[in-house]
């Protein structure tokens, strides 16, 4: 059943196992004409038979969250009731004080002008599949609320256009659908009336998690729960972290010829620097660059080896308010125990938003500590002349990826540009950029979600517009002999770019590399002997 071009939502209740959307390579948004996209078959491989019989995947043939099929009709009915109870809680000021006001605004103010449609990189990349229309899941939710929770809703359902059948297939598809939106909120930025489909996605995920215990294991068990228990969502415990720090000291000496003692658990420091722990495992050069910069500038700073003190991520932001609050409390507690004046967040977009902005309404006098981004601090180091920099060392094409959480959702737009303007003679902007940027496709947890056939979907659909943009930006220097750098000051964005570039073999075929911002600054430092960037694909 294709039928995707019509704006219909009632098929979401279909009892049939048939998918609502079928992704076909020829229907995806085209990449630039001159780019020879390898013919690698269907964009998303079908789930193997065993997984197909175990997990719900009738939205689009993809299983992101591994939602098990209910074993009986009774279980289905129980789950439907549970969903309705959760929805009531979502609409209650008492139970959902955290986002009630924004949710009501978003539910009530949409006039179905569909202005937001062209803002959604997933909808565009998919070839405008109906189930990825940014208003699709919001509309389904509005109809359920109107028909099942409002007085007289059933009687006037046809007239009010809210006639929808609430059953388990609908809920299963809606749960998967909540994980087909990166919550980049580009659609919300475009909405003339302030309706926020990203927020509705967030609230749906919350309902599934807080009411029904349904969440992707990468975000919950392996994410927030592991972070609270072990110290980091990567599974790095304090002992392992200290070993990594020691390794970093050796590497820094090797790279710079300078012996450096990295401050850890230094009480009373001005700054507690917290990185996304993924940096320590996958992109160690980024925290190393911070060490070099902070030490060179003579800042009074420290890392922490306490649980959650060396992990800036907060995956609770994407699916569960309670988990969000728990992690915020741990992070600020670590800072208060160390007696630091402020927390500075490394290159991690969602950690910026979670700890600086959202946490602002969770903290009290007993838990408060100042929190800020590292980007303005880096700008100060670069632009104040405290570092001796030679832009010629970065004389290769560089573009900037704007992490949604840092830019559109927080308004940190210019400092990173001013830095690149100083140190990268061949810096060029993507189009669009800044607050109008496209998400990398790994937002809202997608970068770390790798179960079933979801990785295929991430690189084929959610990251497609970003890859297209990057190709277009480097069109005049696309030869693999010219090394190019996508600066992504966000750990999760880097994870997605890594997967995206691997899928397209972009390093070998086009010479496109990616990395953080701090590395570029260190690479330009004249008192570092050799180049800091190694251009080693990993």
């Amino acid at each position, binding site marked *: 059943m294709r039928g995707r071009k019509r704006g219909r939502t009632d098929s979401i209740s279909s009892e049939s196992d048939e998918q609502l959307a079928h992704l076909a390579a020829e229907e995806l948004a085209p990449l630039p004409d001159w780019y020879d996209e390898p013919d690698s078959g269907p964009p998303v491989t079908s789930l193997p038979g065993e997984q197909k019989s175990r997990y719900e995947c009738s939205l689009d043939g993809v299983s992101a969250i591994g939602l098990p099929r209910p074993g009986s009709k009774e279980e289905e009915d129980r789950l439907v009731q549970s969903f309705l109870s959760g929805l009531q809680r979502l609409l209650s000021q008492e139970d959902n004080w955290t986002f*009630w006001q924004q949710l009501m605004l978003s539910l009530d103010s949409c006039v179905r002008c569909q202005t937001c449609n062209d803002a959604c990189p997933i909808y565009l990349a998919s070839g405008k599949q109906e189930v990825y229309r940014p208003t699709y899941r919001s509309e389904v939710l509005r109809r359920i609320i109107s028909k099942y929770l409002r007085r007289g809703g059933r009687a006037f359902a046809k007239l009010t256009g809210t006639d929808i059948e609430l059953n388990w297939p609908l809920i299963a598809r809606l749960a998967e659908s909540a994980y087909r939106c990166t919550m980049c909120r580009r659609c919300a930025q475009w909405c003339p009336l302030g309706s926020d489909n990203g927020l509705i996605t967030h609230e749906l995920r919350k309902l599934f998690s807080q009411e029904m215990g349904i969440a992707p294991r990468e975000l919950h068990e392996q994410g927030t729960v592991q972070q*609270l228990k072990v110290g980091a969502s990567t599974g790095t415990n304090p002992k392992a972290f200290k070993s990594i720090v020691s390794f970093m000291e050796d590497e820094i000496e090797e790279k710079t010829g300078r012996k450096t003692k990295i401050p850890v658990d230094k009480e009373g420091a001005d700054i507690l620097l917290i990185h996304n722990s993924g940096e320590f495992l996958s992109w160690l050069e980024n925290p190393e660059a911070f060490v070099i910069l902070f030490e060179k500038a003579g800042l009074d700073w420290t890392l922490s080896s306490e649980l959650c003190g060396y992990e800036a991520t907060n995956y609770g932001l994407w699916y569960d308010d309670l988990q969000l609050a728990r992690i915020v409390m741990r992070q600020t507690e670590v800072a208060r125990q160390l007696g630091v004046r402020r927390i500075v967040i490394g290159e991690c977009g969602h950690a910026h938003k979670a700890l600086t902005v959202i946490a602002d309404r969770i903290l009290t006098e007993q838990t408060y500590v100042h929190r800020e981004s590292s980007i303005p601090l880096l700008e100060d180091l670069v632009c104040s002349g405290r570092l001796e920099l030679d832009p010629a060392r970065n004389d290769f094409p560089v573009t900037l990826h704007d992490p949604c959480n840092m830019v559109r959702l927080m308004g940190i737009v210019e400092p990173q540009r001013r830095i690149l303007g100083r140190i990268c003679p061949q810096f060029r902007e993507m189009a669009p950029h800044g607050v109008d940027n496209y998400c990398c496709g790994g937002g809202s947890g997608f970068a770390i979600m790798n179960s079933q056939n979801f990785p295929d979907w991430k690189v084929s659909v959610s990251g497609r517009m970003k890859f297209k943009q990057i190709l277009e930006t480097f069109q005049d220097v696309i030869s693999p002999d010219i090394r190019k750098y996508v600066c992504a000051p966000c750990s999760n964005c880097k994870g997605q770019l890594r997967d995206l570039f691997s899928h397209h073999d972009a390093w070998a075929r086009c010479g496109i590399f990616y990395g953080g911002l701090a590395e570029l600054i260190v690479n330009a430092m004249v008192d570092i002997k050799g180049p800091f960037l190694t251009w080693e694909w990993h």
Partner: protein
Amino acid sequence: MGVTVIAIFYGSILFCLVASVYRVVRCVRAPLHLRWELYRGSSVYELPEWWTRPQVSFRAKAKSVVLDILTLREYYHRNRRFWYSLIVFHAGLYLLVLWHIWLVIAALTTDAEKAPVAGVVWGHVATILVGIGGITILIQRVADRRLATYYPPIHYLKWAFVLVTLVGGFYAVQWHFGGDTAAVMAYMKDQLSFNMEHKLNPPLVTALHVLFVSPWMVYLPLGHVMQVFFRYYHELRWDHVPNLGGGKIGERVGSLLSRPVHWPAAHVQSGKTWREVAGELPEEATRET
């Protein structure tokens, strides 16, 4: 009939006022929420120690609201095709509202003989603009597949009713009052006086117009129009005031954290307060593996 018309019309105005106040109070009294703003450009977070920096000024906020509402600039930038009909409709609507306000003021303060001829022209131009805009929007909503997507059937009736209301008003002014501003002002003055004679025996045309307008009075506070204005409520759009731990915000946060959590999923630990839940580890995290 007069009593019924009076009851419906003034009842609808009263309902509009009471319901609007109720919704505003509900919005303002809603619990402090977590912050979730969007930014159209640079923000205070670009500055080191942002919590010490000045916030967005009232003037900047007011300018933004006025530009949004008067020019529908978001539509202009994002959906130009729809903007043309919307701006005609809204310009007409604003003029029509202003015209009614002017009529009330003029009826109370000016002699009918001195009524400007342009008074009726103003009303007619406004009505025609609303009509043209409304018809164009309705056509677009039917013909444009995207604008028809998810559009509830009842809203087509709404647009039809807009046009009926407009025609009723136009007919009353142009034919019943002969297109004479002085006559319209005299009628308005009569309505604003305590003279019940004319109110209890209204002409059919004006009675019908008043009856057409009444449902709109009821609809206004219930429909999305009111909700759209709430987006300008500062805590939704410009909530940049930093919580420095103590102070009013800190107190409100403290009180919210004392509320019990009722979400039933196992990891939540329902029944405890927010403060307890956030301060403790979920069972999954304390279990030895």
